[in-house]
């Protein structure tokens, strides 16, 4: 029996900031003090507060250490684990009240407003140990479903919960299952979409890394509900940690007889295999994903027939997103009413958001549907750092739109986001401040969709490229007012005529920025000015003569020799030579250089 558990985050964020070495050092130090039998070191999934990684939590005290380095480890072992003295200098500052008493992590602003359902085990259990998942009631839902419920009852329960697809479109999950259950076939399939491709989104990765069994269990339940016997998880190869933990989880579940033949002695057979995606964004689209599992080039096909009728290998198939599955076991165990008690009228439960961009607490948060964007950005996320002001939040990645400051107070759910021209998407939430150019953002997302368009249908293949060309024309200062109209017209054309959701939603970043930030577009076109100072072609650097002391620092740092002037006399920038790298502005100690 261990007297102390040390949890070290093994999510991708913390792993890339060296949590592996922390674990190695920790084990070495613990052994050196002869504490191996007393202290258990556990590598967990993501805690959500990625901005403060690497993260370490020591129980039973519940001390939350942030930004731990391998060199801090000896002190933690000697002071905390050996002598019981908490190392206050490493504690997450929000957990310290009045510099003396230490409050629970769950009372800090970042966690207080969260309600963790899909992420309930992330940062709590060891994802590579099935017994820890079982200790948290894991696989009880599968046991309950197989021994006490009929497939129809399972589907009814999921329907009653009001759960909607967390991949972005928000289709009711129970309804999807009932379609597949109705279609008769000798073989049906259950698939999991873990091809998370939106820039800035990492909810699914964190669930797979922190709680892989929750997905396996839910897939088994889905399988029982629709009468399938084989499942596939389509996960991108760029997620090596998630792939590894999924494979360990599948192996362990087979070992414990929770996958395979005759599960719970009920005659129910189910197995899961992994399929690795090569990183094409379009493979997150359901028909392209299934084509890819079949071993073909990942391209979408027209619907209908919908996958519930003809999906993988032409058999009835359901495809759900990772986060959707992560809710299923809890719905079965706690009941549809419990789930439906959270959220808004048409969007039930909670939603995980990956907070990124210009925000203090970058990380992963799970809040009930209907929480306002202001609460997420200001209260949980800690607001925009460095004295800048909030300009917009981008949801849904390249398929979504920008939400301006004026809409900060709308309760977030599927329908509200659609009504203001954005979409839920998979849950990426990128915060932008006053140094972000909205035209440039639209250009960035279009560049992404141009790269990722599979090329099968013309509206998307050619349309996205033409959109990008117009946007580049505007950001380089050569745009006309007619371009804005053409841009908008082409957007609607793409929406109407593209084959799959990739092309249909690709214009969203353009349309929403045109709608809410048209003045910025006009400033680029009419005044040849980029208000945020981002678009290089429209921005010049100048030295204010009254502030310049002639210290020559800027001239010495200019990589192209564009700055001239005598010592102790105001300097001048040659705008013809200047490449607008900003090095001079960074170096100037007197704030004499301005961008306009």
């Amino acid at each position, binding site marked *: 029996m261990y007297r102390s558990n040390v949890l070290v985050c093994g999510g991708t964020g913390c792993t890339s900031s060296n949590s592996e070495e922390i674990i190695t050092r920790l084990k070495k130090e613990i052994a050196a003090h002869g504490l191996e039998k007393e202290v258990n070191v556990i590598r967990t999934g993501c805690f959500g507060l990625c901005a403060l990684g690497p993260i370490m939590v020591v129980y039973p005290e519940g001390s939350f250490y942030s930004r731990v380095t391998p060199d801090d480890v000896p002190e933690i072992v000697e002071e905390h684990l050996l002598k019981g003295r908490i190392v206050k200098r490493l504690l997450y500052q929000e957990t310290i009240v009045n510099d003396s008493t230490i409050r629970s992590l769950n009372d800090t602003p970042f966690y207080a407003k969260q309600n963790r359902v899909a992420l309930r085990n992330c940062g709590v259990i060891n994802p590579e140990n099935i017994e820890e998942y079982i200790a948290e009631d894991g*696989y009880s839902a599968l046991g309950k479903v197989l021994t006490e419920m009929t497939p129809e009852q399972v589907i009814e329960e999921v329907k009653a919960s009001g759960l909607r697809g967390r991949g972005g479109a928000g289709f009711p999950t129970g309804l999807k299952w009932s379609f597949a259950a109705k279609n008769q076939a000798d073989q049906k399939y259950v698939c999991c979409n873990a091809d998370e491709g939106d820039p800035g989104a990492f909810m699914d990765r964190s669930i797979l890394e922190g709680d892989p069994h929750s997905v396996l269990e839910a897939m088994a339940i889905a399988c029982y509900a629709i009468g399938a016997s084989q499942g596939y998880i389509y996960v991108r190869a760029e997620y090596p940690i998630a792939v590894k933990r999924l494979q360990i989880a599948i192996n362990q579940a087979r070992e414990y007889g929770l996958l395979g033949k005759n599960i719970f002695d009920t005659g129910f057979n189910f197995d899961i295999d992994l399929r690795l995606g090569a990183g094409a964004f379009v493979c997150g689209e359901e028909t392209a994903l299934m084509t890819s599992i079949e071993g073909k080039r990942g391209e979408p096909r027209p619907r209908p027939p919908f996958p519930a009728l003809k999906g993988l290998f032409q058999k009835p198939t359901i495809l759900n997103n990772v986060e959707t599955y992560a809710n299923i076991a809890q719905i079965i165990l706690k009941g549809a009413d419990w789930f439906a008690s959270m959220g808004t009228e048409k969007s039930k439960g909670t939603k995980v958001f990956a907070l990124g961009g210009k925000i203090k607490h970058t990380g992963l948060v799970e809040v009930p549907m209907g929480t306002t964007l202001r609460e997420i950005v200001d209260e949980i996320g800690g607001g925009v750092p460095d004295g800048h002001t909030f300009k917009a939040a981008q949801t849904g990645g390249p398929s979504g739109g920008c939400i301006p400051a004026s809409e900060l107070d709308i309760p977030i759910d599927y329908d509200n986001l659609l009504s203001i021209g954005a979409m839920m998407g998979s849950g990426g939430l990128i915060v932008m401040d006053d140094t972000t150019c909205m035209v440039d953002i639209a250009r960035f997302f279009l560049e992404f969709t141009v790269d990722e368009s599979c090329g099968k249908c013309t509206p998307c293949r050619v349309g996205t490229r033409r959109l990008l060309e117009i946007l580049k024309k505007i950001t380089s200062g050569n745009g006309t007012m007619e371009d804005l109209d053409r841009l908008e017209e082409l957007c609607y054309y793409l929406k109407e005529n593209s084959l799959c959701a990739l092309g249909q939603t690709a214009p969203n970043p353009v349309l929403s920025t045109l709608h809410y930030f048209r003045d910025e577009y006009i400033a680029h076109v009419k005044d040849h000015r980029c208000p945020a100072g981002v678009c290089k072609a429209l921005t010049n650097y100048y030295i204010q003569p009254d502030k310049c002391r002639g210290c020559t620092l800027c001239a010495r740092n200019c990589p192209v020799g564009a700055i001239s002037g005598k010592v102790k006399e105001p300097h001048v920038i040659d705008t013809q030579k200047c490449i607008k790298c900003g090095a001079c502005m960074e170096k100037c100690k007197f704030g004499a250089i301005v961008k306009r």
Partner: protein
Amino acid sequence: MKSLEELQAIRDKARRGVSLRGQNDNAVRVLVGMATCGIAAGARPVLNAIVEEVAKRNLQNVIVTQTGCIGICQFEPVVEVVSPQGEKVTYVKMTPEKALRVVNDHLVNGNVVTEYTIGANSN
């Protein structure tokens, strides 16, 4: 996996391992002084004895944790038992054997072992 009972058995066994984690405001807290003075006086075996005994008896709502020096070094090893209401009993000059009795009498049966408390030992 052949039955729900089998799953239940694994769950109960595994739960003890993860029970340290998480919040419990209704728990009795057992604090063992583990500063240099406590360790020198033999607090480690005392702490381990308590952890083992609590696990063996499968006591719920008991959190065993270590703490620093509380300033009565001549009485180490010191063990404090704090009830959810905040009442504190301080046991001094503990040994693993005495610790087992504290678990049995105090934590299980609710009877303070008066003879080990600081009040009985300070004269």
